[in-house]
């Protein structure tokens, strides 16, 4: 057990070091969400008007936009085991006495730390959009961001655990990350779209993460995913994400622990 926690710490530390030393990655992770915010916001907000009284489209979209860099970076830090494998570093980890489950959990923990940094930077945009951010919102956001980031990096790890080269990345972006992004209710309320789209969105675990975070900002009126007639509260949504994440991570650990 001591070894497990040491493994988590060592690996998370390395992920963090790599992130802060990779300035281009740091900046590029914000460019896309901000572009979406500006273009979509300017393009649609007048067309759409207010989603509910006092919440316009930009305000509706903002919580999801805040999650975008977290989403991308978390999946990618999971998948980065493929890089580690390709550039050899994974071997240094695998022959070390570090606990392998701890190594994967450490990757997820590292992604969590990075997600918190990204979240705080994205929070700086809030005042310009008339989104209120009180201390309570921030305190609620911290665990929510950690849970979302954990689930997504676990998904990345599961994908990366057996992947041998980077060639699958393009495919991964197009088949996993983008659909997950666009079907997560960032850009539209999932209850107000075509039935098939609604079903797909509700099958997407990210939807629940975004929903919980939106509730933290805007309250329960504007958000809430209704499943089988039950509207999910902030805690329930968070629980769904956490459980899905746990399943992903368990799967990743299982795949990873197999040795030829």
């Amino acid at each position: 057990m001591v070894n497990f926690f040491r493994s988590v710490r060592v690996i998370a530390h390395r992920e963090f070091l790599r992130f802060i030393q990779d300035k281009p990655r740091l900046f590029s992770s914000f460019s896309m969400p901000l572009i979406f915010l500006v273009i979509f916001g300017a393009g649609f907000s007048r067309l759409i008007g207010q989603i509910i009284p006092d919440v316009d489209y930009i305000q509706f979209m903002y919580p999801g936009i805040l999650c975008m860099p977290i989403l991308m970076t978390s999946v990618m830090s999971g998948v980065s085991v493929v890089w580690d494998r390709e550039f050899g570093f994974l071997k240094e980890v695998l022959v070390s006495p570090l606990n392998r489950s701890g190594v994967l959990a450490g990757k997820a923990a590292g992604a969590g730390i990075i997600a918190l940094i990204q979240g705080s930077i994205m929070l700086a945009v809030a005042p310009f959009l008339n989104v209120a951010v009180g201390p309570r919102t921030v305190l609620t956001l911290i665990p929510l961001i950690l849970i979302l980031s954990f689930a997504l990096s676990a998904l990345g790890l599961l994908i990366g655990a057996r992947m041998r080269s980077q060639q699958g990345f393009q495919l991964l972006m197009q088949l996993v990350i983008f659909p997950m992004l666009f079907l997560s209710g960032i850009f539209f309320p999932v209850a107000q779209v075509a039935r098939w789209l609604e079903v797909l969105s509700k099958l997407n675990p990210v939807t629940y993460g975004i929903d919980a975070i939106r509730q933290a900002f805007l309250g329960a009126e504007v958000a809430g995913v209704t499943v089988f007639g039950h509207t999910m509260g902030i805690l329930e949504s968070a629980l769904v994400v956490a459980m899905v994440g746990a399943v992903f991570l368990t799967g990743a650990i299982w795949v990873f622990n197999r040795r030829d």
Partner: protein
Amino acid sequence: MNVIEASNLVKRFGNLEAVRGVSFTVREGEIFGFLGPNGAGKTTAINILCTLLYPTAGEAKVNGYDVVKECSKVRQSIGLIFQESTLDDYLTAEQNLRFHGYAYAVPRDVLESRLKELLEMVELWDRRKAKIRTYYGGMKRRLEIARGLLHRPRVLFLDEPTLGLDPQTRRRIWDYIRDLRKRENLTIFMTTHYMDEAENCDRVAIIDYGRIVVMDTLEALKDGVGGDVISVRTEDNDEAMRLLVGQYKLTPSMRNGVISFTVPRGEEFLPGFVSGFPVPISSVGLARPTLEDVFLQVTGRSIREQEADPMHDMKQMVRGRGRGR
């Protein structure tokens, strides 16, 4: 005391048998080498010993720990330098070493002093703040050696330690390794397909198509070829030939005015021979058989011929798979 004990190791990848029943032991403080062409199964064997692969059959112990059942104890007690870099390119040299220190639970205060000592040993102390991306091949390998020793392993595994390095760097790396062995009583297990690199070993196992063909000390292997070749030029070659056959019971041959013959332990034979030979000698030469000669004799091919072997590519592929994790 035996530091590595392997018995009947077998590793199959699908239909391909990369290692076919390999047994050997390595004693403490020894430099032991696997010599063989690419794809002979050397890397697969090393991967089994360092717990990256499970053997299909057979068993192995490293430092007394079973490589399958006690893999974390094995891992803690060994150091590894692979043929390809396993450094994190985006971190600095120091960060890479610290990562290793934390991963092997090296106590903080020990880590600081070891870090400096090792970086100075491989002459990279001044470059410790530079990212690995900016390092060239030889520097990376030197840093990996430093890193592999940081947790004071009892055995150091070197998989093609100087592959792709220039001769000067290779020489330097071998200076470090020999120095280390002397200072720390380190046991070294290495694989190579360079004959001259294998010359650094105390004992060599020649491995071909997944089997150990022959295993012995360098001296014994070379003696097995039939001893050393001595070539002499004398003032009266005909008389010399007669004496060599009659008195010395040798089988000399003469070509272009040079008499040559094979004797075991030529360097011990030569001084007595030169001072005692009745016919005045004008020049004398001694040539040790090389490992190349040994390889040729035991496998029937030279190691370079085999590089072009059609089996080679296929095995290379298999090895790539094994190396992946």
